[in-house]
């Protein structure tokens, strides 16, 4: 298992993150993260709430500006390219957001067809066919004329995946694909991801805190805690780990409760004391 920096940079790495740091104001949320995403693998970024995993994903697609480090995507450093170059890369990636982020003023069909209509010169009839194919792939055939507000949570996510797939991306990003869904619907989304992986050998990056889903879909996992990587490895390697934080996360052990009065005070005032330094 590899707990320090990622692997060496090879051609097989679709994404290479190097010493990535991200700050919100004065607060640093990612403290120098390095790892690689290999071609055609499903990498799951695991972590608790507030661990910085969503920030990591947002930074990887260029929605947050890092304060330091590099993100190599398709041979280009995302942090040091022009807007036009970044848009070029973005046409080759797809992102499915936590709440779906479908455009409420457009029907499902218009949502999915939007990138095609904006970025390609395809005939309207061709777009219709692609649209039907993409909706078929996510199990939403026949829903093109529904408005997003008429869909259930799971269907919204499926529609969002269809939109992310519209441009036949090389990399697909998922932000919390099963958050807020009941176990059956969540399992359906997991199956969808597995199907995409099998059918298209797509590179997939998933951020989640759902352990069951992570172990089901992941080829490799990255466990993040408090803005740093605790462990990288396959599911088996993580299961075998003896690292206390890994064990705590995998065995679902709650944080110890603060019993001592003094500790509690210390916890409350920690922020202020840090600020004074």
């Amino acid at each position, binding site marked *: 298992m590899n707990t320090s920096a990622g692997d060496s940079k090879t051609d097989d790495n679709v994404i290479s993150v190097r010493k990535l740091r991200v700050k919100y104001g004065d607060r640093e949320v990612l403290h120098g993260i390095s790892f690689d995403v290999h071609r055609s693998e499903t990498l799951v970024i695991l972590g608790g709430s507030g661990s910085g995993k969503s920030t990591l994903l947002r930074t990887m697609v260029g929605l947050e500006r890092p304060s330091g480090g590099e993100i190599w995507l398709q041979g280009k450093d995302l942090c040091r390219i022009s807007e036009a170059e970044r848009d070029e890369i973005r046409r080759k990636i797809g992102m499915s*957001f936590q709440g779906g982020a479908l455009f409420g003023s457009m029907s499902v069909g218009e949502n999915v067809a939007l990138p095609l209509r*904006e970025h390609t010169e395809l005939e309207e009839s061709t777009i219709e066919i692609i649209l039907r194919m993409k909706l078929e792939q996510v199990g939403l055939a026949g829903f093109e004329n529904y408005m997003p507000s008429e869909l259930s949570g799971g269907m919204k996510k499926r529609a969002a995946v269809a939109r992310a797939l519209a441009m036949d991306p090389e990399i697909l990003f998922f932000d919390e694909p099963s958050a807020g869904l009941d176990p059956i619907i969540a399992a359906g989304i997991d199956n969808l991801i597995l199907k995409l992986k099998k059918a298209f050998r797509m590179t997939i990056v998933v951020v989640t805190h759902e352990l069951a889903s992570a172990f089901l879909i992941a080829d490799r996992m990255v466990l993040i805690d408090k803005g740093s990587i605790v462990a990288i490895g396959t599911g088996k390697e993580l299961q075998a780990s003896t690292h206390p934080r890994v064990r705590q996360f995998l065995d679902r052990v709650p944080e110890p409760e603060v019993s001592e009065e003094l500790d509690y005070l210390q916890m409350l005032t920690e922020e202020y004391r840090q600020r004074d330094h």
Partner: protein
Amino acid sequence: MVELTVRIGRATLGGLAYLGGLAQLGTRAAYFTFVAPFRGRALRLERAVHQAMAVGVEALPILSLISFFIGLILALQGAYELRKFGAMHYVTSAVAVSMTRELGPLMTAIVVIGRSGSAFAAEIGTMKVTEEIDALETMALNPVQFLVTPKFLAMLTMLPCLTTWADLMGILGGSVFGVANAGFSFGGYIRSTLDALYLRDIYTGLIKSVMFGATITAVGCHEGFSTGAGAEEVGRSTTSAVVKSIFLVIAVDLVFTAIFYFLAPE
């Protein structure tokens, strides 16, 4: 004392930074409206027409009513002073000039702020909260080009149209008083209005209304984009869009009125 200076300085810098942000957004919207189409980036005419319907056509009933009332009020207030001098027939020019130069554009702007400026902030703010703006960016679609440009175009074309309509309705409102109380025939009132108006009165009003349109769009969209996380933030940015728009529209009004005053031939 030092603290006061610091506070004033900070507020001033904050205000300037805000204006800078507005100017930046306005410039980018103007770029995508007027320059980018010539560089092969299609203008979103369909969306602009849709916006123009919402901003312009759907505002007509309420705007008509308001400017009709304003015209009538102007006539009443004007007549109150004018009758002391036995100059009731000047009511026509009082209504016509104040409507076309000032109150037509201003009342139109205020109606549009309430209907559309707030809607822009709410729409973009909600899209921000639901990550739709992020989704646009990850699809390599520029949010300013995609969302602001059609609104900008719609506002720049619809505000002068609405203002012209408001001018007309105001004069019509004035004529009600003129006919009922000042001894005019309807035809006579309109003829007298036409005599009193210069083309200058109308086009200075229209120039102002274009400026108001740009201001309202910039403020509404800027507030939308600076919405934080959470639904209550959308409400906050909507309110703030309305308050800031009204203030800035009046400030812009002052600047342009002063310019027109000092540039106007005697």
